[in-house]
């Protein structure tokens, strides 16, 4: 039996190596997406079984005899021991946002290989390790948050910096995902109508849940889903209507203003009315679509049309400028390593773990599942013809302002595409044009529609395209309203130090003022992205990637400190190695984004180029200011993280020399009486 088990794991590991080798080495022909699926799945399974288990046994010494916070502090609210598979689903739903979908689509400009390898290897050795160790650390510390652990394990500076970094990341995140929605909906009456319809649907759901059928969330979400599907069909009629289509055909700026107003209202309105019902619905739709995409890829097994590497590995990419190193590794953050996950792993989840060993599937396994979502997004982008992919994702400022100019530029790059092809594609999906739809969402929707339609519904590719757009926009808008609210709470918390009334959550002037401040902050960057001649994504997505990875750096600093305290230097490499990699990547990227002499990459060079052009209009002045602001923000983030790194290094040296407090601040051992069968 033991021999059979060894043979089975040997076969899985060999399959992982063979498929990864195949993906990496096949050149000059289209490869089937199943190679990527198998390479990723076999690597995940092997890593989960061996690396995850190694960390659990040797490093963490997980012990099911030890009561978890969920058992010890059980209160029926936050602290509640939960079935591990249910918690796995809950945790996965919490960590999987738009990042693992959009990042890989953008990084596909380098070809399918760099992004795929980073997603698989980054998740196995970095992202899953970070999530797992932080979950473990929080679980052993009564479910403490990352900020609290940073303050306790490293020092007060670490805790404060973690708070400020999260606030800055929120602002950039909300702006960049807002821009993704704007670019997906601009000029699209069908898409705009569908998304606009989700707002009255959400309000209806809120009222239904509060007054008509209290507590029936699943029933209410099912009704909401049917209404959203109906709105997709309604959107087609609206787009075809001579009187209604112009009402819903909006410019990027009008959409951006609409999203800003929406963000403000959603933050200030009662949460049960709009935010919560929409969040329930978007979570279910998200899980359903991810599952559909997995099944669709397995049934269709599409061939990848993009090559392993494109010419843009040299840093001249139209979607974002910069070479594979470091930009591939910050463009794909979620899906490989995401600092944001550390907030979830030290949030609700550690309070719901029933047994310590459940942290392996929940902490390590969930991240592997998210990584697989990123692989599927990569496949969805790469099944498009390269010319189509670049025509959709490239900004007019790079490829030319007209369709004819764009196809000429893209064809000259070696990716042939014609205006007729693009017109036919736009007509198939019920759009006027698909040119210059930067941001990743439309090309992802096209790829998904391509896969879904081939599973049996080829005649309704327009429906699937708009279904995918609805799915992306629905949960991005949920992130915008929830994020604005969280940002408001954080700001109220900070401002209450100088003006105590502002800290009162129910004081309306304070609520309105802080909501407006948060919305103004991300709204400013959103408008900046809309006005940016390079499409906005070129500057905002790298900023978001850098900030997210810098948060991962903070999380890995905390994790390394804890491992050093537990085992001295013996196992610290588990988190220290990904930390060194992330520091190298993010600081290189940050340095280049600020100081590169190439205007498409360096913010300051971009500002200098605009200033040198001489046309001192108000618009140019704004662009110059924005470029310098982005440089300052990037610099601030790097300084903040450099401070926490230096502070951590001081603590590490002290621990290794025996001069610093190496006391492990775990909650005392209490024997568990919980029987998992009762869950």
């Amino acid at each position: 039996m033991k021999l059979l088990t060894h043979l089975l794991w040997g076969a899985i590991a060999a399959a992982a190596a063979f498929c990864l080798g195949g993906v990496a080495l096949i050149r000059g022909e289209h490869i089937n997406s199943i190679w990527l699926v198998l390479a990723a799945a076999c690597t995940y399974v092997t890593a989960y079984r061996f690396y995850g288990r190694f960390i659990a046994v040797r490093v963490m010494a997980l012990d099911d005899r030890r009561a978890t916070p969920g058992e010890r502090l059980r209160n029926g609210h936050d602290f509640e021991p939960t079935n591990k598979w249910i918690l796995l689903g809950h945790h996965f739903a919490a960590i999987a946002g738009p990042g693992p979908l959009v990042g890989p689509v953008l990084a596909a400009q380098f070809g399918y290989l760099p992004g795929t390898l980073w997603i698989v290897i980054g998740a196995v050795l970095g992202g899953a390790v970070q999530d797992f160790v932080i979950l473990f650390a929080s679980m052993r510390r009564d479910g403490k948050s990352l900020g609290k652990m940073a303050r306790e394990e490293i020092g007060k500076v670490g805790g404060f910096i973690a708070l400020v970094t999260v606030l800055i990341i929120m602002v950039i995140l909300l702006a960049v995902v807002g821009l993704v929605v704007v670019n997906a909906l601009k000029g699209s009456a069908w898409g705009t109508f569908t998304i606009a319809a989700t707002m009255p649907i959400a309000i209806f759901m809120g009222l239904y849940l509060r007054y008509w059928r209290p507590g029936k969330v699943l029933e209410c979400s099912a009704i909401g889903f049917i209404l959203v599907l109906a709105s997709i069909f309604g959107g087609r009629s609206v787009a075809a209507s001579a009187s209604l289509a112009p009402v819903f055909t909006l410019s990027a700026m009008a959409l951006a203003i609409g999203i800003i107003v929406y963000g403000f209202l959603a933050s200030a309105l009662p949460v049960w009315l709009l935010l919560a019902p929409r969040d329930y619905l978007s979570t279910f739709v998200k899980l359903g679509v991810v599952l559909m995409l997995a099944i669709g890829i397995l049934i269709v097994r599409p061939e990848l049309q993009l090559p392993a590497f494109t010419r843009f590995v040299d840093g001249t990419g139209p979607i974002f400028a910069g070479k594979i190193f470091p930009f591939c590794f910050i463009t794909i953050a979620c899906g490989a390593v995401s600092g944001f996950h550390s907030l979830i792993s030290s949030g609700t989840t550690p309070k719901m773990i029933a047994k310590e060993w459940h942290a392996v599937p929940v902490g390590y396994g969930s991240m592997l599942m998210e990584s697989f979502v990123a692989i599927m997004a990569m496949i969805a982008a790469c099944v498009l013809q390269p010319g189509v992919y670049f025509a959709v994702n490239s900004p007019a400022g790079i490829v030319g302002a007209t369709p004819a100019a764009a196809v000429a530029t893209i064809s000259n790059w070696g990716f042939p595409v014609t205006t007729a092809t693009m017109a036919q594609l736009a007509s198939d999906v019920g759009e006027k044009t698909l040119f210059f739809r930067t941001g990743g969402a439309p090309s992802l929707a096209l790829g998904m529609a391509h896969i879904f339609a081939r599973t049996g519904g080829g005649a309704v590719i327009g429906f699937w395209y708009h279904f995918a757009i609805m799915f992306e926009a629905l949960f991005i808008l949920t992130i915008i309203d929830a994020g604005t609210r969280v940002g408001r709470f954080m700001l109220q918390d900070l401002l209450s130090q100088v003006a105590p009334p502002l800290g009162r959550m129910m004081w309306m002037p304070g609520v309105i003022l802080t909501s407006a401040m948060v919305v103004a902050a991300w709204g400013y960057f959103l408008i900046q992205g809309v006005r940016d001649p390079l499409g906005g994504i070129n500057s905002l997505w790298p900023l978001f990637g850098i900030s997210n990875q810098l948060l991962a750096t903070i999380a890995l600093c905390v994790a390394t400190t804890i491992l050093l305290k537990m085992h001295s230097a013996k196992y610290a490499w588990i988190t220290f190695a990904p930390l060194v990699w992330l520091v190298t990547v993010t600081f290189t990227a940050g340095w280049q984004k600020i100081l590169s002499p190439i205007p498409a990459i360096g913010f300051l060079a971009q500002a200098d180029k605009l200033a040198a052009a001489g046309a001192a209009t108000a618009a140019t002045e704004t662009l110059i200011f924005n470029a310098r602001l982005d440089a300052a923000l990037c610099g601030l983030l790097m300084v903040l993280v450099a401070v926490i790194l230096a502070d951590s290094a001081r603590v590490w040296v002290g621990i290794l020399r025996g001069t610093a407090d190496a006391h492990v601040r775990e909650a005392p051992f209490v024997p568990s009486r919980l029987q998992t069968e009762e869950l």
Partner: protein
Amino acid sequence: MNVLRRFARLILATLREISDENAYQRHLAAHGRQHSGPEWRRFSEERLRAKYARAKCC
């Protein structure tokens, strides 16, 4: 068949957890209360206040 039934039960339980329906049942059990509109509203307000004080992941 049993495996399928167990799987369906697990999926439903996960959906109930995500939708806070399980949490509501725990709340009723913990406080020894019966389901009612005001009770749901009381639970929901407290639950959502805590839920949306935390960052949502990207």
